[in-house]
């Protein structure tokens, strides 16, 4: 299992478009990917769940990957957050 934390800098938070891109990336890996905010978890492969967390600018989230290719997934997703959110 791999985990990393990230604080959202995008003024709009995780809004629809980046949420969609994020979900697409997450879905590309065989491992389970979970996004956690304030103890609330969502399956990162499902956009409505991800958006349902309502992550705003300045809030910290945790991404957890578990299973096949968990290291690659964590690395790719961390890069994605830094570049897009």
């Amino acid at each position: 299992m791999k985990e990393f934390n990230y604080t959202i800098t995008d003024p709009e938070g995780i809004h629809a478009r980046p949420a969609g891109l994020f979900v697409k990336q997450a879905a590309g890996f065989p491992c389970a990917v979970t996004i956690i905010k304030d103890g609330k978890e969502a399956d990162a492969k499902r956009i409505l769940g991800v958006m349902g967390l309502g992550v705003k600018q300045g809030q910290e989230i945790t991404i957890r990957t578990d299973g096949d290719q968990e290291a690659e997934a964590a690395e790719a997703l961390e890069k994605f957050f830094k570049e897009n959110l």
Partner: protein
Amino acid sequence: MGAKAGIAVFAPVHWTGIFLSEKGEEMELQGKSVFGGVAIGRISIYKKKDNVVKRTKVDDVDAELERFEKARVKAQEQLAGLHDKAMKEVGEAEAAVFEVHQMFLDDLDLIEQVQNIVKNESINAEYAVARTGDNMSEMFANMDDEYMRGRAADVLDVCNRVVSVLQGAGDTGFTATEPSILLADDLAPSETVQLDKSLVLSFVTRHGSTSSHTAILARTMGIPALISVDYPEDADGKMGIVDGTEGKIIIDPDSATIEVYKKKLEKELEKKKMLQELKDKPTETIDGHSIHLYSNIGGVGDVASVLENGSEGVGLFRSEFLYLESSDFPSEETQFKAYRTVLENMAGKKVIIRTLDIGADKQVDYLNLGDEENPALGYRAIRICLTQQDIFKTQLRALLRASYYGNLGIMFPMIISVDEVHQIKDILAEVKKELDDAGVQYKDPEIGIMVETPAAVLLSEELGKEVDFFSIGTNDLTQYTLAIDRQNAKLENINDPHHPAVLRAIQMTIENGHKGGAWVGICGELGADTTLTETFLRMGVDELSVSPGRTLSVRDAVRKVDLSK
């Protein structure tokens, strides 16, 4: 498309006696303005599809699941088609919503919820989809963020689409045949995109927010729009007036009111006409000498007015807002996004961004500049950048990365020596190498300097060999040349921007710039002074950059000049 729709606002100038209310009982309703302007015309209420979904038992659950899947695929196809249509008609920003809808329709939470309801209750797909839509939109509607609450409408819209496919429903909606004022509860993006926009004079909605899709569309089309108007259903077919500036709609106006608004509309029409006429014309003198007419802007949000006013590019994009609006240094990413947005929206037109121009007169806490005795002559602009190079490099990296997305020029303020330009070029080369090493793509932007100090004027020949362009900042150049503090009210009577010394400095800069091989523009307030337009043209100026609202009057002035005389 803005232009075409804009004309439509004024198309139905046929209000005559026949539109007058027989009883003369006009009704005025107050709402919230989304976009200003006046519209006069028939009211047409948007008729929502009758989405009564019946709950019926099904015997063959698998067949019902199959029906759902087929409808879902069909809905996806429709969304892909709407996305293409929106791309062509209103642009990428408006089209993006359909991409999001497609992703919603692929969401496993949504799909599984529908499937479970069908399976567990042996119930029809329409009902299962509608209930899922209700459940999921409720989740968004209860969030504490306005943006997310707005997405509740998207979820419902997506589910209604699938329900419609399942029901095989026909078209309803906007049934007007003449240009009309459209009243609706709220409009979903899929509904607005299907509208014949040449028939819409104004949008008025009961619900929705200033950031809803309808509001954004109204702004794009440049037509008056209101939200939060609780209109009566019997308004359909009546005459109406929308005053977008005052945020109100008048239903069944009496003749006196119509007269008042008729005049208002005529005035707008006149202004708009002049604008339309000059908007797409070249900035060219009678004898065919053309210059570039660009805009000065201070934020990403100003781009709309740049395009609206028919400006040919951005001649001065002040990057300060990024620094003044934040509580710490803006990150490379934040800057990159802002620059890229402007470049993308300007779609290949020139965008000249000026690097940080801040000093003791524009304080930001995190810079810790302290108070200075003489801020205008102090530690500011390029002086900060060349001392605290990390700040400068972050901005240059963001600029270079953004350069890939359009036609960028970078401009450096407060230059007083050739050596400063050399230092800048060295730092720029370092940043480029870092990007090369990281494999990041960028284009080679033009680089230029602000000529706003007498030193730069006197060295303009040498400086012209070093850079691609000059932009003369007349406000500071006047202040420094005349040694007059422009904030000091007592000196106002002698602070003359038409002072011969200032004009001679401008002339010298233009001539020397050309000798060195640089093009020369003016971005200060003087650039918009139409009493000097001919003077500048005769001096050989290549570009004028003015605030967007001045664009057309300056173009008008240029087009009246004949340099051959």
